């Protein structure tokens, strides 16, 4: 751009400069994303197969594949030779792998969405206490033996608890349309503290079995996953992820701040309420049967952003895939690292996610100009 008083500044010059660079950068981005999606899909497929093929009951890999195909009427591969092999695969292992995929995708997308709404890369359901809030409500369902919605009761309660907590955190931590890092983290501490206290109270009130369930929630595990549960969680996750994908462009614009997003045609109030509901839905999907599996929503979207940039149209579906992949791997580790034992999944993810959170916090504070 020149300062001279050339009356019309639109000569042909710029377009020469523009075309090659633009084409190349656009092309690069698309290629990178394609490779990422392809890679994630393949990795998820392979790891799911590996997860289905590993466990306490030794079933050769070929038999796992055989059992899978036979279930769909295809006479491919050998059936498990162990008398309970087929039943084990279909009643214990496959639902667990399916649950890992669904819950991982839900948690990662919930994290990406929260970060988008809060405009803060540290927002995550477990960090800000939404998971704990959902667990409190779910624990209420158990302790007070609520059954108003059948199989869905726990999930419905978790959803309501998650919704209330998300709204509370949102209202408490925002100022001038933004959420400061410190405010968010401190709000999370406060909300988590209240939720822990309520859980402790419920444990005190509950009977043995309720106490057992609450401890289970606090640590998070996929042990005991059944198709009935997957059937509750999967639709919740699917709806949530679908709406999240639809909102991706608006989330991009929201990164400019609420005012600018509105100037670009985004109904910020409506988007915000919609996405808060979606975050609660996705968190509830994960928490209601698997407890608090922390930090997935923090680590996964961040890694994806490092690869493809922050654009939500790629970030959200890629996070879903990567979250699923991460949980399939983590859960396989949880149930095979120690023979026979089932390590709590939440313990594993926190072991990895906690230090990551700290690193991110330090980094965010350092580059406060961008994210504070």
């Amino acid at each position, binding site marked *: 751009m020149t300062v001279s008083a050339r009356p019309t500044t639109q000569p042909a010059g710029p377009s020469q400069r523009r075309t090659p660079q633009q084409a190349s950068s656009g092309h690069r981005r698309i290629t990178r994303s394609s490779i990422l999606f392809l890679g994630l899909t393949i990795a998820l497929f392979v790891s799911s197969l590996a997860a289905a093929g590993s466990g306490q009951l030794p079933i050769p890999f070929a038999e796992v594949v055989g059992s899978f195909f036979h279930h769909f009427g295809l006479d491919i591969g050998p059936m498990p030779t162990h008398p309970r092999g087929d*039943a084990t695969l279909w009643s*214990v292992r496959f639902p667990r792998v399916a649950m890992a995929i669904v819950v991982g995708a839900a948690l990662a997308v919930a994290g990406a969405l929260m970060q988008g709404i809060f405009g803060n890369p540290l927002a995550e359901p477990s960090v800000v206490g939404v998971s704990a809030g959902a667990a409190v409500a779910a624990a209420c369902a158990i302790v007070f033996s609520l059954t108003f919605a059948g199989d869905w009761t726990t999930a419905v309660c978790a959803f309501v608890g998650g919704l209330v907590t998300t709204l509370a955190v949102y209202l408490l931590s925002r100022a001038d349309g933004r959420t400061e890092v410190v405010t968010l983290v401190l709000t999370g501490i406060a909300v988590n503290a209240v939720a822990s206290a309520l859980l402790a109270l419920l444990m005190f009130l509950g009977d*043995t079995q309720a*106490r*057992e369930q609450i*401890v289970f929630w606090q*640590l998070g595990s996929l042990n*005991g996953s059944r198709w009935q549960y997957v059937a509750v969680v999967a639709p919740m996750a699917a709806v949530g992820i679908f709406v999240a994908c639809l909102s991706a462009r608006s989330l991009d614009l929201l990164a400019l701040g609420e005012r600018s997003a509105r100037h670009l045609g985004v109904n910020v109030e409506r988007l915000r309420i919609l996405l808060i509901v979606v975050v609660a839905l996705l968190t509830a999907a994960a928490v209601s049967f698997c407890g608090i599996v922390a930090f997935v929503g923090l680590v996964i979207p961040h890694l994806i952003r490092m690869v493809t940039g922050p654009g939500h149209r790629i970030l959200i579906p890629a996070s879903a895939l990567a979250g699923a992949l991460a949980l399939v791997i983590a859960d396989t580790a949880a149930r095979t690292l120690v023979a026979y*034992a089932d390590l709590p999944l939440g313990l594993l993810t926190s072991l990895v996610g906690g230090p990551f959170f700290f690193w991110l916090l330090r980094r965010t504070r350092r580059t406060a100009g961008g994210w504070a």
Partner: protein
Amino acid sequence: MRRPSRRLLAGSLGLSLATVVLTACGPVLSSGPSASDEASTSAVPRLSEVTPLDDPRSWQGVVDVNLPDPEIDPVTDDPQPDLPVTVTDAQGTEVKVTDTSRILALDVYGTLSHTVFELGLGDNIVGRDVSSSFPEIADRPLVTHNGHELNAEAILELDPTVVLTDTSLGPWDVVLQLRDAGIPVVVTDSHRGLDNLKSLTQQIADALGLPAEGKALGQRIASAAEATEKEIVEVAPQDVTGKLRTIFLYVRGQAGVYYMFGEGSGADSLIEAAGGYDVSKEIDWKGMRPISDEGLIAAQPDVVLMMRHGLESIDGVDGLLERFPALAQTPAGENERIIAMDDDQVLSFGPRTSDVLNALAVALYAPDAM
């Protein structure tokens, strides 16, 4: 780790039994590859054969009761299960059992597996819970881990044709998974007490198609318990004020878990039947709940009944008194009058009820004989 309180009850049972020195009295009965080989176990004399203390309140010291391995004495050597059988289990679920050739009987105290052995179907048991460690079952693979956690794949690996369990083991979802896999799972009453010796035995026997054997076994267990109770009544002080004020304290590890067992826990009827005075009844203490220091002092127990591994987890009686100074303000604390019993024996009831009652009564009123 997942540590539901019920599982905590005997959480560290997987560890080998620590060596406990008891006064020698009778031969060591244990044999075979049992973990209790390492421990010096000895039969406890019958209460009727020993001389009770004149003043049981002034006796001082810890009594460690370690019953010898049970002698399995099946009611029949050649049981013929009447199959298929359809039973309505303790939760109201209708379960059809068609095959008892591969049985799993799992609960937190090992009562179910012991009962199955006494019914004569011990050879059909293909695995065990961590509390079942008598020689006859010790070689079967374990299916509970992390203390008392059911492992679905480990169970399915054994290809059981029927699973007997109760709600004392978890996660409950694993039970549901087993049903999903097509395995009949019969859930028995989780309550352990003197009041359901017969009915629990009957539930187990019915599920295995042995109703008549169940009746006989239930009768045998109940009669033996009654006979022991009668002996105890004769020895224990008649006057309520003469009976030792007893509480059952559940302590586990350094975490400060500190529960008193009361009404409905099984500990209440155990204390009464063993000739003690059940303090929990006096203060209307229900279930298993944490007790406060002042509550403990107010209870003024003469004797504290505990699980052995619980006591070991806090370094014995010294650790106990150091950790809970309130206990020192009670007669039990002053006299270090602690009775420790194996975690999976003390509240197991079932076939061992008579032995447990007798041992406790001896520990209360004739501890010198142990």
